[in-house]
């Protein structure tokens, strides 16, 4: 199992760790059985993600992917955040070991789940905008 320097950096100094009080959107994906849970908190002002925090229970890659995902969406528009793909997360981390690809999927899903929660709170059905948020299939 070889992690890139970027993964180790984000693991040992994770950015944007914590919670946001009065978050506009909160999403949680994964489960304890798989060994990964990611929880993402978003503050949204005028369609812009003005603040983001995360909490993660999981391996080094799970912490690193959540950390970099928060950096990649902070200050961006909702539309940009919806475009965040797990491939972009992997690239930003200079790669992930094959067994850890699912962590990048989880990071993408955590962002989408938080945005879905935001839309629900606005009284908008998130499914047509965010798409279906599926559980990762790594442990099925």
């Amino acid at each position, binding site marked *: *199992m070889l992690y890139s320097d970027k993964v*180790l950096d984000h*693991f*040992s100094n*994770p950015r944007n*760790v*914590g919670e946001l009080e009065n978050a506009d959107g909160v999403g*949680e994906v994964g489960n*304890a*059985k*798989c*060994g*990964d*849970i*990611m*929880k993402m908190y978003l503050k949204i002002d005028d369609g812009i993600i003005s603040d983001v925090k*995360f*909490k*993660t*229970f*999981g*391996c*080094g890659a*799970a*912490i690193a992917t959540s950390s970099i995902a928060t950096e990649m969406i902070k200050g961006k528009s909702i539309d940009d955040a919806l475009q965040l793909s797990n491939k972009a997360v992997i690239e930003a981390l200079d790669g992930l070991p094959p*067994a850890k690809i*699912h962590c990048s999927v989880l990071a993408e899903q955590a962002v989408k789940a938080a945005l879905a929660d935001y839309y629900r709170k606005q009284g908008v059905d998130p499914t047509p905008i965010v798409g279906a948020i599926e559980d990762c299939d*790594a*442990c099925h």
Partner: protein
Amino acid sequence: MKKFIYADNAATTPVSQPVLEAMLPYLKGEYGNPSSIYEKGRRALAAIEEARRQVADALHCKPREIYFTGCGSEADNWAIKGAAMALYKKGKKHVITTVFEHHAVLHTTQKLEKLGMEVTYLPVDENGLLTAEDVKAAIRPDTALVSIMYANNEIGTVLPIAEIGAVCRQAGVLFHTDAVQAVGNVEIDVQAQNIDMLSLSAHKFHGPKGVGALYIRSGVRIENFLDGGGQEGGHRAGTENVASIVGMGRAIELACAPGAIAKKHDHLVPLRDKIIAETLKLPHTRLNGHPTQRLPGTINISFEGVEGESLLLMLDLAGIAASSGSACTSGSLDPSHVLLSLGLSHDVAHGSLRLSLAEDITAEEVDYIISSIPPVIERLRAMSPLWEKIVKEEQAGA
């Protein structure tokens, strides 16, 4: 210099200086093939026969009952498949083992099931123990073999091998034990303990990697695993790994010298128990494995709300090399089958730490380990949504 404390001796151990010195001549000038007739060959043969005697002395058996192999896994494979093949022809198609063996045993018995044999996987209790009575109750008229590990690699629980051996001998059933973690840590006497076959691996007791051995009691007939030339009495083909075999002999001689194991226990057990006692002061932690019937240097603790790999990476940053369950399963996402067998839930099993100490660890190093764990746990718990849930549920219940 960056701090480095090696606390993963159950994964592997460094080759000691005397072992290295014993090996070096056979990596340089003494390149003879032990099967060759001339003097250079005869010297190589004499060297492996001396190593065979050293292994036999440590296990209390005859040198001709020791067969060198390429590793501990090969010894396990050979013992189980070899016995199964020999006894299947006689209508014996049942094997007994436990749910928490090393994969070298479990994947081998699963292979036997595919070939039509029946395997009973005995459960273990919450401490990783089972009794000889449990084994006795599982023996059938068609049982070919009982294979039960001497000590568990992940949690360190030491099983009642002498009692199990007695039960098997009385029932006339072959008894194999995977003693890879036990050799050099506990006193082994294959005769007194009624062991028919025993697997060991050199790199667990300061020998080199890539060499193991299988003890096969004289009179026990099993099929060969590696067919070919006449090495190892015609039972394990392949030109001998002379230097490594010599290293294994020297390593076991040192590890099992009179008084060496008692000395190791006197030094390690108080340090092991200090780490356990201090670490269990953290809330929501659990010692895995039996509190006293355990290997002198092996510790396994679960921390709720924390995932094991993150814990290992954080400890690595603090200069401590440790493991989370078996290193062999680290490529897998599933939690350890050993921890699940103790009745742990998946999420708790994900958050386990194995520390395995060597005889040269100092009290200062142990104190450093003790002081390094709580801040790492607190940091990971502070960012864990699972820990958040655990705390909330506790507050709601209080």
